C-alpha cells in the first residue's frame, strides 16, 4: 500500500478519539436495525410497521418498483425522518446523528447524478473530500478506485463523454472512494447491457469478498442478487415479506417439491392423495409436500397411473423463486 493513501498517522497508544470511535463501530456485529418503522407521505404509507435486523455482509433489498426500497434507504441515511419507529445503522441513529452515519456510508444512486463537466478523477476525489478525506488522500484514492472499476485509461476524460456503463462505474467509484464500511447500491445494474451488468456485479462481488465492507444492494432485478447476497430483505407495498440469511430462508421455503409428469397429472395427483401425500396443482406442475420416505409413494403413484416423472426438484431454489413464492402467498392471502 502506498503511504500516501493512508490518513494522518497517530503515535501508537494515543489514537485520536475519532479513530477509536471508528474502530468501535467497525467491530459491531449489527449492520442495520429497523424497529417498527412506518413512513407516510400524506395519504400514502410507503413503509408499514417494518422491523428487521441485519448483520454485516451483503444484503439484497429486493422488491418491485414502489415497494419502499428507496424510502428505506432515505431513512437509513437520515435524509427523512420516520413517521414512527426507530432505525440504527452501524449502531448509530440516523435521525440523531445523520452526519456520522453518512461519514460511514457510501451511496450509489440509481439515477443519473454525475457532474458532466468534471473528469472522473476530479469528480471522485471531490466526492471523497465531501466525505471528509483530506485533498491528498482523496486524490490518491480516486485514482485507486477508478483503476479498480476499470477506468484507469479514461479517468481524465470529461464525464459527459462517458457511456452509460462507464458512468455507472464512476457512480460505484464515488460510493467507495472514502472506504465506507457500508455501501448502499441503488439499482447498480440499471441501464446496463448484459455484459456491463455482469461486470458491475463482478465488481461488487470482488468488493464484498475483500472484507470490511457491507453492501445493501437495492434492486427489482432478482437475478442480480443470486450468488451475491448472503442476506435478503424482501419488500412489497412497504411491508417485509421475508428477511434474513438467504440460505435459511431458502431452506425454510423448500418443503414443497415440484413434479412434472408426462401422462395424466390429475390421475397422478389423485393417486398421490390416496397415499396420504399432500399435493396441489400449479398450472402444468404439481407441488407435493414430500419428505424422504414418501418419495417411494411418488414413484408408486406414477407406476400405478402409467405416468412418467419428468422433473423432480425443490420449489424454491433462488431468491427469485422465494420472492415469487412469497408474493403468491401474499396475493392469495389478500384475495377474496
Amino acid at each position, binding site marked *: 500500500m502506498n503511504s500516501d493513501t493512508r490518513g494522518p498517522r497517530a503515535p501508537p497508544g494515543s489514537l485520536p478519539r475519532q479513530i477509536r470511535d471508528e474502530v468501535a463501530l467497525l467491530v459491531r456485529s449489527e449492520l442495520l436495525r429497523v424497529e417498527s418503522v412506518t413512513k407516510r407521505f400524506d395519504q400514502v404509507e410507503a413503509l408499514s410497521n417494518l422491523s428487521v435486523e441485519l448483520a454485516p455482509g451483503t444484503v439484497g433489498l429486493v422488491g418491485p418498483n414502489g415497494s419502499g426500497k428507496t424510502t428505506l434507504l432515505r431513512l437509513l441515511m437520515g435524509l427523512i425522518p420516520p413517521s414512527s419507529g426507530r432505525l440504527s445503522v452501524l449502531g448509530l441513529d440516523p435521525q440523531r446523528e445523520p*452526519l456520522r452515519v453518512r461519514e460511514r456510508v457510501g451511496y450509489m444512486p440509481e439515477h443519473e447524478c454525475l*457532474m458532466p463537466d468534471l473528469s472522473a478523477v476530479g469528480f471522485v476525489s471531490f466526492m471523497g473530500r465531501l466525505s471528509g478525506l483530506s485533498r491528498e488522500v482523496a486524490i490518491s484514492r480516486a485514482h485507486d478506485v477508478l483503476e479498480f472499476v476499470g477506468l484507469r485509461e479514461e479517468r481524465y476524460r470529461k464525464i459527459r463523454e462517458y457511456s452509460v456503463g462507464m458512468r455507472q462505474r464512476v457512480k460505484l467509484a464515488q460510493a467507495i472512494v472514502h472506504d465506507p464500511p457500508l455501501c448502499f447500491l441503488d439499482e447498480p445494474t440499471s441501464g446496463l447491457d448484459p455484459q456491463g451488468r455482469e461486470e458491475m456485479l463482478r465488481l461488487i462481488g470482488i468488493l464484498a469478498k475483500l472484507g470490511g465492507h457491507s453492501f445493501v444492494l437495492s434492486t427489482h432485478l432478482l437475478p442480480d442478487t443470486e450468488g451475491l447476497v448472503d442476506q435478503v430483505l424482501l419488500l412489497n407495498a412497504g411491508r417485509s415479506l421475508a428477511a434474513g440469511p438467504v440460505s435459511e430462508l431458502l431452506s425454510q421455503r423448500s418443503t414443497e417439491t415440484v413434479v412434472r409428469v408426462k401422462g395424466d397429472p390429475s390421475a397422478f395427483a389423485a393417486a398421490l392423495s390416496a397415499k396420504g401425500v399432500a399435493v396441489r396443482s400449479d398450472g402444468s406442475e404439481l407441488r407435493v409436500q414430500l419428505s424422504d420416505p414418501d418419495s417411494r409413494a411418488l414413484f408408486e403413484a406414477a407406476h400405478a397411473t402409467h405416468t412418467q416423472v419428468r422433473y423432480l426438484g425443490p420449489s424454491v431454489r433462488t431468491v427469485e423463486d422465494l420472492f415469487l413464492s412469497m408474493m403468491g402467498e401474499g396475493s392469495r392471502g389478500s384475495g377474496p
Partner: protein
Amino acid sequence: MSISAPRYVQGPTARVGRPWRILAVVEHEVLRRATWGPLLAVALVWMIVVLEVVVNVYFATVTGGSVGAAFDSPYGSVIWVLLLLIVTATVGAGSLADDIGSRAITLYLSRPLRLSDYLVAKASAVGTWLLIAAVGPGCVAAGVSAALGYVSASEALAAVAGCWAVGFVMAVFFTGVALALSSLTRRSLYAGVAIFGTVLAVGVSVSVVSGITGNSDLLYADIVSNVQSIGDVAFGLSPPYPTDPLASTAVLVLTGVALAALAWWRLTRIEVVGE
C-alpha cells in the same frame, strides 16, 4: 478490461471536520465557475471601474474636485449595476440549478453535509466571485491612484474601506438573488434570464412610477438608487442622498438574506434520493 482490487487497505482514517468539507464545496464551486463567461464579465468590470476611477481621481486632483466623488463615480452608475448583474447571472445562475438539473444535489446530501452547509457553501462561492467583481477593482484603483501620487495613502485606505462597504452589501444582495432564482429551475439559462429580467424590471418600473408619482419611498425598491446612497455615504459625500443610506443598506442586506432563505426553503422541497 482487467479488474484489480483497490490498492488501499481498509482501515480507519482520520477525517477532516465539517468546516473543511464545506470549504471543499466552496473551493470546488469557485473553480467550477471560472469559465470564459464569468472571467470575461469580471475582467470587464475591473477594466471599466479601474479606468473610470483612476481617470476621475486624476481630474479631481487637477481641477481640485472631490476625490471621494471620484472614487464613488462607478457606484452611482447604472453601468456598474448592470456589470454586476452580468457577473451574477454568469456565476450564480447555475449555482443551484446545475445541481438540481443534474441531480448532483443527491450526492452532496448523501455525504456528511447538511442542507444548510450546502447552501452556505454555494452562497460563499457566489459571494466570493461577487466580492472579487464588486470590491476588487475599487481597491486596485485606489492603490493605483496612490501609487501614481494622485491621492495620499490615507485617502486611498478610506477609498478601500468605501469599496468594501458598497461591494459587500451588493455581494449579499446579488448572492441572495442568484440563489433564490437558481433554486427555482433546473436550467441555469432560465435562472440567468430571470436574474437579469427581475432586477431590471423592478428597477426600471419603480424608477418610472416614482418619477410619475413623486413618491421617493419607492426608490428603496430600486437597486441603483440604493447603491448610490450607500456609495455617497461610504465615500464621504454630503447629502442629499436619493434614499436614506442606512435604510438602503438594511433593504439590500435583508432582501439578500430573505432570498437566500427562500432558496433554502425551496431546496427542502426537492426530493434528494430517488425519483
